[in-house]
Structure formats: structure tokens, C-alpha cells
């Protein structure tokens, strides 16, 4: 076992925000890269000010944001005012001792800061620079700011998605930020493999829209080759029937089922005790089931609504039919399969935050020889100013004091403004939350004891 991770020795300077770059750099940090995340006290990262622990907005709320911790595990954090020449000098020094510089600002901002690849190359000739932008670093839309929904919309994915009788529908997370972030991990590794072999750095220009379009080739090629655009089909499939999401016992409980062939169809009819369906001419083979899929979905829904979703899933799977209960967030966290695989990792927080050790999502891969590094929470603001500036760059204590005095580094936002969310009762009343539980801390701690408490 190599406990330093496969990427030990790789140093990355991250000027990221929100998801697209931070998620990708978190994955690299988990696997042993040293990631130094830059933040600004003058322009607070939005994820520090929202989704706060226990919804409490007072005190040092910026060290209690769920979305920040979710995307910044295992990183070192420093604050730096890049509008100040001394701050910029520190950034350039950091780049000069690093392997990768990664950012997701607009090209306009990067040009204004003189942080383009050509600028960095003068400081570190073999640097790999990674820019992740909504539409790409070049081209007529280069400077258009973008959100996840915007890139999902531009990519073609939103247009294809939605119920059969309605408008396009988007998921309630910035989905394509993650699509792009996943491809960014691959892009960084591709550039690092090349650099390992040749010693050469380069500029990697990630368009979040292009990354997303690369995952909808069926639709794009159907138009390119056949001039056709298929209508939205909800949870349907172009060949399988039944294929959908059906109601189960309980409040807002559902199961997904996908039947791929006649053998699975007969097994399905057996499990739900509808032997007559497998004899029914309308449903006798794949093609007929697909033609009569609307009637079929209706009939199935009537039967599944008498079943517990997990029990039906287990019975269908035992009979060889693909089926999955629709897991809500609590189901997912306490899912026995993910628990056995150790997918969620318990992370201890800085004592000043008052946040107990909590489980966070891990990674979709397990490596037999090089496990991830022991998980550490994302940094509180300025947590590693001293470590990075003194130990890595050799700045003196007096230097640090004068940098702090001048506001180049700091430990708190200069203009703190938390997002205040409505009370949980109000959120449930508005329908934004399904429900809430007051003993969640005990429930979580029971299943996920603190790391040194086992």
C-alpha cells in the first residue's frame, strides 16, 4: 500500500470557485496531489456563505458552509488579494514551484490579472494551466459568464430532457458543472502524463458546454446524419418497455424498472403476480410492449403502488430484472450497499467551526494499491496562510504581519453577507423540502462514528 496516494509530489495552485474547478481539484487532492486553494477576503466565495450548518448565520458563518466543504476536501487554503501587487507576486512565486495552475474565471478576468498561459510560462516554463469556462477560452462567446443550467442548455441536453407532454426540465443541481469537472480530472491527468514523459507543460482549455455535448452524441449525430430530432420521452427508452418510474407505498416513494427482453418480462410478471400479462397479446414481445407502453405503464403503476419500493427492488433483482428504488438523500446516506463499500467518508472539521465530524461523498473509484489520503476537511479561511507562505515560500513572520496589515492576506471576509434561508418549517410548507428530522445528528453519528471513535 502506498499511503501518500498516486499523485504524491504533484502541486496544484487552484484559483477556483463554486464547482467546476473545485470538485476536480478535490478529486486530485484526495489522491495525493497537494492542492493550494486561493481565496479572496474581498470577494467571498459564494459557497462559504450559503447552506450553513444548522442554518445559523451569526459568527464566522463563512467557515460553516456545506457546499464549500463538499468541494474542497484535502486542500490547503490561503487568502490572497490579487488586486494588490504583493498578492500577485506571491501567486507568481507559488506558480514557480508548482506543476498545475487551475482556474474557472472568465477569460476577461484572467486577462485583466495577466494570468494567461503565456504569462505563467514565463514564471514556470513547464506549468500546466487549466482553464474551465462556460463556453471555452476562445470564440465569440468566450467572455459570457455561465451557470450550470446555461451550459446544460447550450449543450443540447436540456432540449432532449423532460416529460413526454411538456417543456424541457432541468435537474435541481448544476449538473453540467459536474460533467465538466469530471472531464477536467481526466484533462489534468492527460496533461500530467504528457509532462511526465516529455517535460512539457501546456494550456488546457475546457469548455463546460463542449464537455456536456460530448455526452449527448445520440442526439447530435441523429441530427447530423439523419436530420432528425427525437421528441422528449420522459423516463422512456428508445427500445425497452416497460422502462420507467412507478409509484410505491408511502409518501413520495418510487421505483424504477427497466425490462430488456422477453425473459425478463416473464420474470417481472411473476414477481408482481400478474401471470396474465405475459400472455396478453399487447405485451407479448418487446415491440408490442413498446407500442403499448403508455397503457403498460398505467397498469404497472396500479400494481407497484401496493409495494414497498425496496422490497420490490430486491425481489425483481433476485429474478434478474433491473430495478432500483428512488433514493432520497437520507436513503442514499444510509444505503447498506454504499455503507459496505465505505463510499461516504467521515471528515473532522476545524474545532473553531463547531461542526462535528460528518460523512461526505467519496469517489467513484477504488484503487487496490494507492488508496486516497486520510480525509481532511476543506480549510477554514486563511487556515494555511502561515504554512504556505512561511514553509513553502520562506516568508518571515514580519512579512506575514505586514501582508496582513496591508490586507493582502486575511482570515475573514471584508464584507460578510450570509444567505439566510427560511426556517425548515417554512421550507417544508413551501414544498422545498420533503420533511426534516430533529434527531439527525444522533442518527448520523450512530452510523458514521467519528474517525478515532471506533
Amino acid at each position: 500500500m502506498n499511503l501518500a496516494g498516486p499523485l504524491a509530489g504533484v502541486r496544484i495552485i487552484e484559483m477556483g470557485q463554486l464547482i467546476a474547478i473545485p470538485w476536480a481539484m478535490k478529486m486530485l487532492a484526495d489522491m495525493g496531489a497537494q492542492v493550494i486553494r486561493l481565496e479572496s477576503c474581498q470577494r467571498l466565495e459564494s459557497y462559504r456563505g450559503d447552506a450553513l450548518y444548522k442554518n445559523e448565520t451569526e459568527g464566522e458563518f463563512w467557515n460553516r458552509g456545506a457546499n464549500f466543504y463538499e468541494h474542497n476536501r484535502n486542500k490547503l487554503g490561503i487568502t490572497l488579494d490579487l488586486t494588490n501587487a504583493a498578492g500577485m507576486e506571491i501567486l507568481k512565486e507559488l506558480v514557480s514551484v508548482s506543476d498545475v495552475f487551475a482556474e474557472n474565471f472568465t477569460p476577461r478576468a484572467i486577462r485583466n490579472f495577466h494570468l494567461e498561459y503565456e504569462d505563467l510560462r514565463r514564471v514556470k516554463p513547464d506549468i500546466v494551466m487549466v482553464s474551465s469556462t462556460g463556453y471555452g477560452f476562445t470564440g465569440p462567446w468566450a467572455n459570457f459568464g455561465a451557470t450550470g443550467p446555461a451550459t446544460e442548455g447550450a449543450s443540447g441536453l436540456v432540449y432532449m430532457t423532460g416529460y413526454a407532454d411538456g417543456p424541457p426540465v432541468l435537474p435541481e443541481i448544476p449538473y453540467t458543472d459536474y460533467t465538466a469537472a469530471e472531464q477536467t480530472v481526466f484533462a489534468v491527468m492527460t496533461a500530467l502524463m504528457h509532462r511526465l514523459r516529455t517535460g512539457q507543460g501546456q494550456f488546457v482549455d475546457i469548455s463546460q458546454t463542449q464537455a456536456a455535448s460530448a455526452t449527448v452524441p445520440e442526439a447530435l449525430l441523429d441530427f447530423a446524419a439523419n436530420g432528425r430530432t427525437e421528441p422528449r420521452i420522459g423516463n422512456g427508452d428508445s427500445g425497452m418497455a416497460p422502462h420507467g418510474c412507478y409509484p410505491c407505498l408511502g409518501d413520495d416513494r418510487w421505483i424504477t424498472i427497466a425490462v430488456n427482453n422477453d425473459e425478463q418480462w416473464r420474470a417481472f410478471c411473476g414477481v408482481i403476480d400478474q401471470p396474465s400479462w405475459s400472455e396478453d397479446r399487447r405485451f407479448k414481445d418487446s415491440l408490442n410492449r413498446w407500442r403499448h407502453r403508455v397503457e403498460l405503464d398505467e397498469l404497472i403503476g396500479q400494481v407497484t403502488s401496493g409495494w414497498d419500493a425496496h422490497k420490490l427492488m430486491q425481489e425483481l433483482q433476485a429474478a434478474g430484472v433491473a430495478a432500483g428504488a428512488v433514493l432520497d438523500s437520507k436513503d442514499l446516506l444510509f444505503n447498506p450497499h454504499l455503507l459496505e463499500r465505505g463510499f461516504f467518508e467521515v471528515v473532522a472539521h476545524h474545532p473553531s467551526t463547531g461542526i462535528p465530524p460528518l460523512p461526505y461523498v467519496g469517489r467513484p473509484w477504488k484503487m487496490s494499491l494507492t488508496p486516497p489520503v486520510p480525509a481532511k476537511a476543506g480549510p477554514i479561511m486563511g487556515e494555511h496562510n502561515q504554512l504556505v507562505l512561511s514553509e513553502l515560500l520562506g516568508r518571515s513572520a514580519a512579512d506575514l504581519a505586514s501582508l496582513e496589515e496591508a490586507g493582502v492576506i486575511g482570515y475573514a471576509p471584508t464584507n460578510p453577507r450570509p444567505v439566510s434561508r427560511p426556517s425548515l418549517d417554512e421550507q417544508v410548507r413551501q414544498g422545498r423540502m420533503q420533511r426534516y428530522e430533529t434527531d439527525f445528528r444522533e442518527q448520523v453519528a450512530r452510523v458514521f462514528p467519528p474517525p478515532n471513535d471506533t
Partner: protein
Amino acid sequence: MPAKALDGVKVLDLTHHIAGPWCTKLLADYGADVLKVERPEGDPARGMPPFYHDEIDQDKSLLFLYLNTCKRGITLNLKTLQGRRMFRELLQDVDLLVENFSPRVMASLDLDFESLLELNPSLVMVSISNFGQTGPYRDYRAADIVEYAMGGLMYIFGNYDREPLKHALHQAQFKGGTDAASAALMALYHQRLTGQGQHVDVSIQEAMASGLRDVVDNYTYTGAIRRRQPNHSGDLTRLRATSDGYILPNPGIGARDNWQATVEFLEVPELDDERFSSPSARLANAEELGRILDETFQTKNKSNMFFAAHDKRFIYGIVQSPEEVLADPQFAARGYFVDIEHPATGTVKYPGPPFLMSGTPWGPAKPAPLLGQDNQEVFGERLGYTNDEMSRLRSIGVI
């Protein structure tokens, strides 16, 4: 030809369907030498729609053609002893083996990682599966919709009062494949430094679950369980229908304080009213606000509105159909769509590089292999089988 980033990486590709081939396509398009091994009847993705000109043919599935660019292709029946012998010969000088069979298949063929490592001590093997190589759901079956359900995204996706929804097409498979490609390169990076091989277990369920914002954390931080959101018609960032499609408005964080800017941009004096001027007033009058916004957007052209918004640095998004994506000037300026000529279809425009590398270009893209296209070269020239032997192997169904 200019150097490619993954030059010198040799991959044996035992994958089929979508997740595995997407993983090895990423590697191949950026320069890895990928040899795709198909069963003699071919990758089942050769039978997946859409087909070129709707001609159902093993070389005309557009999805298959896309997923297998830049790879060479051979056929081999791993259910035969001879097929496995030839597979082991091929394995000896590769860096990476990628497979996405059900978890117990490789072991049942005596091709488990431990025995393969004896043949090739620095082998990296990546196994992609629906739920991973361990755990109670290991042998569960899945389709994309099941991964959406079990990965946590589906429950919060769709209309408040309807069944949960998934994305169109095969997003879960693509996520799993991308993550597998990343993990493969991490393991190869370690291999290049130390000479050590290892086994990488990639789960598509975990690929879905690892990319969720404020879902599990909403519970661990506050005890609340998110659900599909009610349809707040007054939500300023809700998707709206325009005269010619759909747009994703986003007046930016500033709109909370500067309602006037939004009113002026939308050119609706009626909105300049205290019923709408603060967030709480807008919530109280959401239905009325929604009605006015719906009517307003219906009169607009989405492209004009998109560009006008960006002039003001409002980060609006535009919903593009596949036809519009193909005609998009931004994609064109970046050379995104590339012509690839395949013997069965002629030239077709394919989506190209997801990202651009300044020193090591993507492409030029080579078409997906015909079934068994490189048998002669690989078995004959590389492994040294004679033509007679190869005809015999063919007649007994090994290749």
C-alpha cells in the same frame, strides 16, 4: 504527425455498450493506442439506435461509431480456451486493461486481476460496473434509469407533483466512463513512477452520487430532506418559453438589490411596482409576477435576448436543439464538430474534443473499426499465427 498527450500508452479494451467504450475513447482520442476486443458477434452497441439513415447494420450505429473512434478492432471469443490463450498473449505488453463485464465474469473466465498480474506485473486493470466489484448490490442489474434512482439525483429531478425524472439518453454511463478514464490515468501515473500495477474498481452508482450538490449535506447539516421543487412561477431563474424556444434567465445576484435593472432589461414598466420590488414582495405576488414574466418572454426571441443579456453581463443561458448546437457559432469557432469518414457511412459530423490542449492536439479522429478489422495484423503479424491457423480459428468461432 504532432505528438499526442497519451502517446506510448498501450490499452487492451475489453469493453462494450457505453461506459467502457467512452472511457477508452477518451484515452484513444488523446493519443493512447487502444486495441478493442469484441466478441465474434460484435459489441452489442453495434445494435443500438440511432442508425445512419435508419439502416440497421452492425457498422451503422451512430452511437457505436462515436464511442469507438481512434481504436483498432479485433474479435476474440473469450469463452474458448484458445481465445483466452490469445488474450493472455496480447496482455503481456500493455499498460492498461479496461473491462465492464458484470463483476463475476472475468473471474469465471480465469481472467481475474491476480492471475493477469502474474503475466504482466505492471498491469493496471480498470473494471467498470453498475454498483462496483463488492457489496450487496454487486450483482444487481441496472439501466441508466436505475443508476439515476440509486445515485440520488432522480428523487430531486422533475416536477413537484409528478414522478421523478431522469435526463434523456445515457448520462450515467458517460459519467462512469469519464471517472474510469481519470482513475485509469492516476493509476498509470503511479505505474510510470514505480512500475507497479493495480486494480481499479469504478462504480457507476458512485459516479452519480459523487456529483450532487447540497443533497446529502442538506441532511447532515440541517436534518432536511430535499425533494422536487414546487413550480414557483415567479422564480426569476425559471426556464421560460420564448417565441422560438426556451431561455434560462439569470439576472445575477445583483437583481436582489437592483430590481430596476431587471425591469429595464425586460422592458416591462408594469414590473416597476412595489408588489415586485423586493424578494419578499415577489414571493408574496409570485403568481402575478409569473403571469407577467410568461407573457413578456413569449414575445421575445431567445437569441436576441441571450446576446442582449450578456451585453449587460446577466448570465442568461440558451436552450439549444441538436440542430442549433450543430450550427452554433461558438462551437464552430472552436472547431468542435469534426468530419469523420467511415467506410460504411461516408463522412458524418461528430462531436469532437471536449477540451483543447495547446501542445498536444486531439485528433485527427480515425473512424471506429469494422468488426474484426485488425485481426490479420494483430493475430498474424503481431502474434505470428499463419493464415491457415487463422482460418481454422475463424471456423471454430475463436475469432
